[in-house]
Structure formats: C-alpha cells, structure tokens
C-alpha cells in the first residue's frame, strides 16, 4: 500500500514537472483567416498549411519545442474575428495569430492582441494603418500593404502616361486605405483622380460600375478591391471592351490565385505589384512545389501564404533566442532587433513601426502565347528596392516612431 502511494506521488510529481517544462517550451499558432469566402484562396487553408510547413522546416521540434497550429474562419466579420481571438488567447492559450486577410478584421484583432500582450504577424490584410496610426508593439505587418501597392502600381502607371484615374473601390477599411494611398501616389506623380464609385464587398456584378468608369473617360481604371471582387471586375471589364476602348485597367491588388482563376485570356496585360512570386529562384520554386503538392486544389502559394511561412520562421528564431513565447511585446522587440533572412523573401529588416522591409516587384500577366503552362503567369517589369517599396518612416503616423 505504502509503495503504491509513493509510486503515485512520484508519477504525479513527474507529470507535473513534465507539464511545467512543456509549458515553457510550447508555442501555439492560430491561423485566423477567411476559410470559405472570397479571400479563402488568398490565405485560408493555404495559410494554415504554410504555418505547418514553417513549423516543420524551422527545426524547432528538434530543439525541444512543442508547436501546435490551429485555424478558424473569421467570415470577414470583425466581431467574429475578435471573439475568436479572445477565445484563443483566454482558453486555447494561443501565442501568435497569423494571416488575417480583410483589413477590417485585422484592425479589430490588432487591438485584442495588444491588450493581451500576444503577437500578431499579419500577412493577409492590406491596410497601411496597421503600421501607421494603428501600430502597436505587438504587431508586425509582413508581406505587403496598401502603401506599397499604391506606390508600385500607381506611380508606374501615372508616369507612363496614365494621368487620369477612376477608382472602383471595395466599400470597407481596405478599399478606402488602398484608394487613399493610390490617390496620394497618383497626385505625387502628376496625375489626377476624376471619380470614384464604392461598391459593396463581394459584388457579383460590376457592369454598372464599369460603365460609370467608362463614361468618366479616365485613362486608368483602378480596382481598389481584392479576391473575388477583382476577378469579377476584370472579367467583366474585358466583356465590356474597356481595354479595347483605350482605358487601362489597374488591378491594385492581384494574387496568383486570381490570375489562375481568370485564365490568361482575361487577365493578360494586367500590371500590378506583389512582393513574392513562386517562380523567382530555386528556393521559392522548391517551397512552391512542396506547397502545391500538399494543397487539395494544387494551387501555388500566394504572397500572403508565403508571408505566413516566412514570418513564422523569423518568429521562431526570436522565440528560441528568448526561450519563451510568453511575453508578446518582448518577442516582437526581439524580432525587430534581429535581421530577417529566409528562403522566400531573402534578407530584410523589421522597422520600429512593425513594417517588414523587403523589395516589391512590378509584375505583368503574360499573354497566353508566352506562358509555358499552368502557373507560368508573371513577367517581372521592375524591382522596387526595399528602401523605396514601403512608406518612409518620416511620413509615418505611428506613435512608436521617435522623431
């Protein structure tokens, strides 16, 4: 009897010690995304996969870390996103939230993450406010933002003669930010905005808006929207002969999944800005092939999914150096301190406002005759160097930036 009590006590002690040790060396990643609607192919299940691949490739498990990846669908509703984030932090003990396409949701989650002192590695949302007036010591904006898109595409097109613009803008935080940033870029380059129409998110029919854009006689029609909205607008623009009429269509945010869905016939010639393309070098190709083989629909990674992977690799380095993922602000500070280096985005840095700095690229969609097969879609027109791709710190409204 006595021995059995002793054994039980010993076992309990060991189990307790074990769990205490494990608690120090655990990381829980929450991939919060649109899993089922218009942005699901941009982030969605692919971002969860990218997070899992980052865990595998980081070598963290060999160093004794126990890492879990969970995911949820925010349905593009800020209130749903916030309640998932709260539940993740309070009940599931999540340490870091990744992805979060949809700027409305991302801005709302941004506040919760700061309140709970966790980490937000944003890859999916575009609004440049996340490193502007809404910046926090807990958020890093990794892949792209509306400023970079506006700066890349807006400046390039205006300088090459497209000096009057008409916007079709998705009526929420992201569309407004993208329109605002592009308007600034266009005016700075000597152009003028002649009109705007704000359409509801997830519109099936753009013909009416396109007709208004056509009547405006603007040289460039800027699509300040994303995902399914962009593909529908591009497809219907070709139906209404917008480009044959001499107007240029600028998809301000276009992902490879959109180009694939449109087909080259409808998408050819579109000029746009991205920070990642799977077919850039051996490392990106190796990652992309492995990624595609694990995707149900065989899709190549978008820049958002690549960003989730790359951001997590850097996050792991910082957490490993600190020995704990407990204090979110501390981890982010460490991430800012260390230079970044990963197979997909190369060498880079993270600024004090939380902005990850790397080059951006001006791409153009190939003609069907130029493409060697599925997923061979982009021509690189220009590389925007890292120090010019994003908003300069001198223009930042972020309170963290010391001036």
């Amino acid at each position: 009897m006595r021995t059995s009590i002793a054994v039980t006590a010993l076992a309990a002690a060991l189990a307790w010690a074990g769990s205490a040790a494990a608690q120090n060396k655990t990381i829980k990643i929450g991939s919060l995304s649109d899993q089922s609607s218009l942005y699901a192919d941009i982030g969605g299940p692919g971002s969860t996969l990218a997070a899992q691949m980052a865990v595998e490739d980081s070598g963290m498990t060999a160093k004794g870390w126990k890492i879990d990846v969970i995911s949820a669908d925010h349905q593009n509703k800020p209130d749903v996103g916030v309640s998932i984030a709260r539940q993740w932090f309070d009940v599931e003990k999540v340490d870091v939230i990744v992805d979060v396409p949809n700027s409305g949701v991302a801005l709302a989650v941004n506040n919760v993450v700061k309140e709970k002192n966790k980490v937000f590695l944003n890859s999916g949302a575009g609004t440049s406010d996340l490193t502007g007036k809404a910046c926090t010591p807990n958020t890093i904006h990794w892949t792209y933002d509306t400023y970079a898109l506006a700066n890349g595409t807006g400046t390039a097109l205006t300088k090459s003669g497209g000096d009057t613009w008409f916007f079709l803008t998705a009526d929420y935080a992201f569309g407004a930010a993208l329109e605002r940033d592009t308007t600034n870029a266009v005016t700075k380059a000597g152009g003028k905005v002649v009109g705007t129409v704000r359409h509801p998110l997830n519109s099936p029919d753009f013909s009416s808006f396109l007709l208004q854009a056509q009547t405006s006689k603007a040289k460039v029609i800027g699509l300040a929207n994303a995902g399914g909205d962009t593909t529908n607008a591009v497809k219907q623009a070709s139906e209404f002969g917008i480009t044959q009429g001499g107007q240029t269509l600028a998809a301000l945010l276009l992902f490879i999944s959109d180009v694939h869905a449109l087909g080259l016939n409808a998408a050819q010639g579109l000029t746009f800005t991205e920070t990642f393309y799977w077919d850039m070098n051996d490392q990106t190709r190796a990652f992309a092939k492995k990624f595609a083989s694990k995707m149900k629909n065989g899709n190549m990674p978008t820049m958002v999914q690549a960003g989730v992977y790359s951001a997590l690799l850097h996050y792991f380095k910082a957490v490993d150096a600190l020995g704990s993922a407990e204090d979110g602000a501390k981890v982010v500070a460490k991430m800012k301190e260390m230079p970044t280096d990963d197979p997909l985005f190369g060498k880079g840095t993270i600024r004090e406002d939380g902005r990850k700095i790397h080059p951006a690229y001006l791409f153009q969609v190939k003609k069907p005759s130029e493409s060697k097969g599925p997923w061979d879609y982009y021509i690189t027109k220009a590389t925007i160097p890292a120090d010019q791709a994003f908003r300069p710190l001198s223009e930042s409204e972020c309170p963290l930036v010391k001036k």
Partner: protein
Amino acid sequence: MIPLLGISTQALFGQLLLGLINGAFYALLSLGLAVIFGMLNIINFAHGALYMVGAFCAYFLLNLLGLNYWFALIISPLVVGALGMIIERTMLQRLAGLDHLYGLLLTFGLALIIQGVFQNYFGSSGLPYAIPRELAGGTNLGFMFLPNYRSWVIIFSLIVCLATWFMIEKTRLGAYLRAATENPALVRAFGINVPRMVTLTYGFGVALAALAGVLAAPINQVRPLMGADFIIVVFAVVVIGGMGSILGSIVTGFLLGLIEGLTKVFYPEASNTVVFVIMAIVLLVKPAGLFGRTA
C-alpha cells in the same frame, strides 16, 4: 443629352439596360423557386447550390468532354434536373405533408453540403469560362457599349420565362399541375400520377436554376459560392413578388434588377441592400407580396 439628377440620360439608359439584364437572372432563378413553391410547397434553399452545379456542369462539359456552350445549355439543365428528381424522390418526398420548415432545413443542409464539397476541391476563386465565340464582342448602341452576350442573356431568359408562364397558366398540363396542388387526392382519383408529376415539377424547377447557371458562367466566375451570394436576393424577389406566383416572380425579377441598377448609380454603397429594404416595405404594406393572393 439632357442631364437628369446629375447624370446624363444616355448614361441612365445604359444603367437601366444593365439593371434589366441582372433582372433576367433574378427572374429565371425566382421563377424556378416560384414553380417549386407553388406546386410543391417546398421552400427550396438548395436552389442556389444547384444553380452553381449547373455552371460547373458547363465547365466540365467544355473541359473534360469538349462540348461547348450550346451543348451545355441543353445538357446541364437535364443533368441537374435529373439530380433534382433524385433528391425529390429520395429525400423531399418523405417530408410531404409536414411543416414548410422541414423542407427548408433539408434543402438548406443540402446546399451547404454541395457547396462545401465543391469548395473543398475547387477553392473559392473559381474557374474561368469564356464567352462563346458566336456571342463575343459587342454592339455600340450610341449611349453605351453592349456586349452581345448580355443581349443574348436578356432575350433568351425572357423567352424561357414566358414559355414557362404559358405552360403553367395556359396549357392542360399546367392545369393538372395547379389542380394537383389544390387537391391531390381528387386529381389522383382521375387517374393522374400525382407523385410523378411532383417529381417532374421539382426537376423542372431546378433545371431552370441550372440554365441560369450556364447563362451566368461566362459573366461571373464559375465559383462554388456563386449561388450562395445570389440566392438570398432571389428569395427576397420571390417574397416581394408573392410566394408561388409565376408571373409575380418574373415581373418582380426584372423590376428589382432595374431598381438595383439605379441604386448602383445614385448610391452604390447600398446596392446590395436595396432589395431587402423594398422587401421590408412590401411585407409591411402588402404581406402577401405584390402579386400574391391572400389565402
């Protein structure tokens, strides 16, 4: 060019025409719903999903079997109609005589399952489907550039709508159908196979949805959620027109397309909600709908 409320009449004509074209889709879809509700008393929430299956069917016919748009226009409704009849025979028939809610829940569940399966395999951004060569290009009407495909959509759907209305309201077959809904036992006593007629009617209703799906494939992306986004509006159309009223659903479909088109010009932010505002008003003023008969 006389300016009216800030925009030229020419631009306004263009917008009205586009509204009418969108109305054609509303009309086709709500017609199928109205036929099913009027004859079977089923609120068919799977309608949007079957509309999507119709579009996917066109995509598969083209890419797997090499059959073009014109074949799809015939084959896709037949395939989806057959699928509908299987659904009716194996599932919906068991709910006959029960409250509307059961049919609604069953079809809603079916819609979620069908959409989920398609989304799992094809993602959310969808697949490309080109406009058939014969209908590519467009005509300059002076006040706007009208793609030939859109003209085709409006003419074709108008013909289908009118033919359906004529068949149900003016022919002997339609009379049987209407009688069978009023009093199935009596019609059966005359030696007419009512269950079979019900199955065929459901098949016909969802075939109309598939037809709309094929028509929409070249305009929209062929996406798993193309129907889910649409179906709520279409239900509002049916409610405004009067549940089960054939003519009501056709006229309301076109009318709401027009109103939505105008909203897109004057206050585009509200273009997704205007239909529901109208629905609320109609329900307050005339609860049976514009063309509905009060029981």
